[in-house]
């Protein structure tokens, strides 16, 4: 089972700031999405609303065709794991957290949960506050994956893990997604590391949707044009320029948009080099905006 999401004109205002600004977004069920945005871009607010942690006040969110807030059928089946600290309740034991998840989640797979706890070496008989940061993250991941929720959202929940554990997590995530397809949204700062896991990428900035596209098409949309400054300037006139750098007579301009066959031929003719831009660089350019 997988859940699709439809968001229409969603706005969230906090005193003095608009966290989500008339956001409209449709996510089909059954894909792995990367949700990218800078700190304060509205990612966590957005995920909290989808997970029914908060009530929608302007606009609509539909998950599997229904509004999730105070909707028991949906809330059991939507799992949002926030940053590592989220699960920590003073005095609670790992066992207690697992027990709660087992009770709440209809799709809970106990064997899989145990396998993950072993894999990430999380001690079950320990108080949660006694866990290392990495172990807390791993506990979050375990609850998130073993819940097998049709909509699973991991909000930077594995950032506390070291590189070997993160790679183990990526492997398990893929393996389990293939065996049990569901809608997965990962928000992360480690873009290059996970970009290949995403079928589609959603980029938000200042609460607004900046891009929603197949990862590969988005990646191919950015290009760095490098060559003699005058020729680069001529070539990139009228294109969406994301950034530029100059070194002596050579200039590098990062553009966003399709570069057709004819344009490529012109570039070759003028001695310009066109090279693709890594997703992370594209993200930096698309979200650098004019704020501090």
């Amino acid at each position: 089972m997988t859940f699709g999401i439809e968001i229409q004109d969603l706005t969230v205002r906090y005193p003095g700031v608009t966290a989500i600004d008339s956001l409209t977004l449709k996510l089909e069920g059954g894909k792995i999405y990367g949700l990218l945005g800078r700190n304060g871009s509205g990612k966590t607010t957005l995920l909290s609303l989808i997970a029914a942690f908060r009530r929608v006040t302007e606009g609509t969110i539909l998950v599997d065709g229904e509004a999730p807030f105070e909707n028991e059928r949906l809330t059991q089946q939507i799992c949002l794991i926030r940053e590592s600290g989220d699960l920590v309740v003073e005095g609670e034991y790992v066992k207690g957290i697992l027990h709660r998840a087992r009770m709440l989640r209809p799709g809970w797979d106990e064997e899989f949960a145990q396998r993950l706890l072993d894999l990430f070496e999380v001690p079950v008989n320990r108080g949660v506050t006694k866990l290392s940061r990495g172990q807390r993250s791993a506990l979050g991941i375990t609850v998130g994956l073993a819940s097998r929720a049709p909509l699973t959202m991991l909000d930077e929940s594995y950032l506390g893990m070291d590189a070997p554990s993160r790679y183990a997590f990526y492997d398990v995530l893929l393996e389990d997604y293939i065996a049990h397809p569901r809608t997965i949204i990962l928000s992360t700062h480690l873009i290059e590391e996970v970009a290949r896991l995403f079928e589609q990428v959603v980029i938000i900035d200042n609460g607004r949707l900046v891009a929603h596209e197949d990862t590969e098409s988005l990646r191919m949309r950015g290009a760095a044009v490098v060559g003699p400054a005058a020729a680069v300037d001529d070539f990139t006139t009228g294109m969406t320029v994301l950034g530029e750098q100059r070194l002596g007579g050579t200039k590098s301009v990062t553009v966003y948009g399709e570069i057709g066959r004819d344009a490529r031929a012109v570039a070759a003719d003028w001695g310009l080099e066109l090279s693709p831009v890594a997703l992370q660089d594209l993200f930096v350019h698309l979200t650098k905006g004019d704020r501090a």
Partner: protein
Amino acid sequence: MFDDRSPIYHQIAEAIKNDILSGELGADEQVMSTNQYAAFYRINPATAAKGFQQLVDEGVLYKRRGIGMFVSADARDALLAQRRERFFADVVEPMVAEARVIGIPLDDVVAHLQTLKGRDQA
């Protein structure tokens, strides 16, 4: 395995073509499933599927429903013909262009090729 130069599904298709050209994958041999491929290389299964679909569209692979994907009987010959056709444009011409830029006379290049040819025949 993959770089940022072209779409990953394109790189997957190229890698499988290279395996067919080198003989590592024979005619009518079954290729890895897209899911196995995705898990092995840590990429999204939809991306892997796109690479395999491209090969089916080009006639390099064929599908057997419920079983998997296999190498077409004439895939290797067709790929060889394609590569041969592109050889001069893709390999020889850039070499000549580079030789010009760095000031190596074409006669020297030809002479070197003759030496290699001699070595080949020896």
